């Protein structure tokens, strides 16, 4: 699975993208976030405030209960501040 990060989340994690293999028991975006938070302090810092997390699966915005599978591209980022 391809993960990409933007803005403060990218900086906190320390990389802009990575490939991971999804554990069997991770089947939703919310579970993915919880799983990532077990990988280190940088992920915990990035995801400590769940209301500051936005996700897109294959470039469509989704909520934390969205189903995911290994072929998906998952983007994780803070609320948008453009314009």
């Amino acid at each position, binding site marked *: 699975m391809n993960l990409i990060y933007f803005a403060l989340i990218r900086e906190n994690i320390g990389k802009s993208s990575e490939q991971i293999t999804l554990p069997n028991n991770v089947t939703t975006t919310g579970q993915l976030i919880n799983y990532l938070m077990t990988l280190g302090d940088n992920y915990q810092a990035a995801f400590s405030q769940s209301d500051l997390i936005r996700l897109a699966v294959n*470039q469509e915005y989704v909520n934390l209960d969205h189903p995911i599978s290994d072929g998906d591209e998952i*983007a994780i980022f803070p609320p*948008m501040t453009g314009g």
Partner: protein
Amino acid sequence: MRISAQSEDFDISLEIERLKENRTDLGAIVSFSGLVRDIHGDKIIKKMTLEHFPVMAEKELSKIGELAKKRWPLEGLTIIHRYGELSPGDNIVLVITTSHHRSAAFEAAQFIMDWLKTDAPFWKKEQTEQGEHWVGAKTDDDDQKNRWDK
């Protein structure tokens, strides 16, 4: 509909001309440009960096444009959003709407700006004299967007 996420600056007159071409049916043209301000709250802004989600940024801008076109009888529409490093006074975003009548052009441009603020994947980082930081999302912007729900 012309949509662009780009690092280069834009030229408002040129963009208006593109929408006018040789048409003589347009009664109203509204343009909005958003610029980098030198002050944000109590901080002096030296630079701003705009990060974006490539490809998805233009897809979302198109979606917002399509929503506006469904709601108002627009004849033409341009949305340009810049990314990269910008200075105070620089252009960030341009929205141009053309219509036969002024209220459609005005309302659609406002709608697009309100949606774009919360839905287009761009993020602002400010460089101030006290260091740099990511700009936080404002609940104000959600309110502005939600007023179009009715």
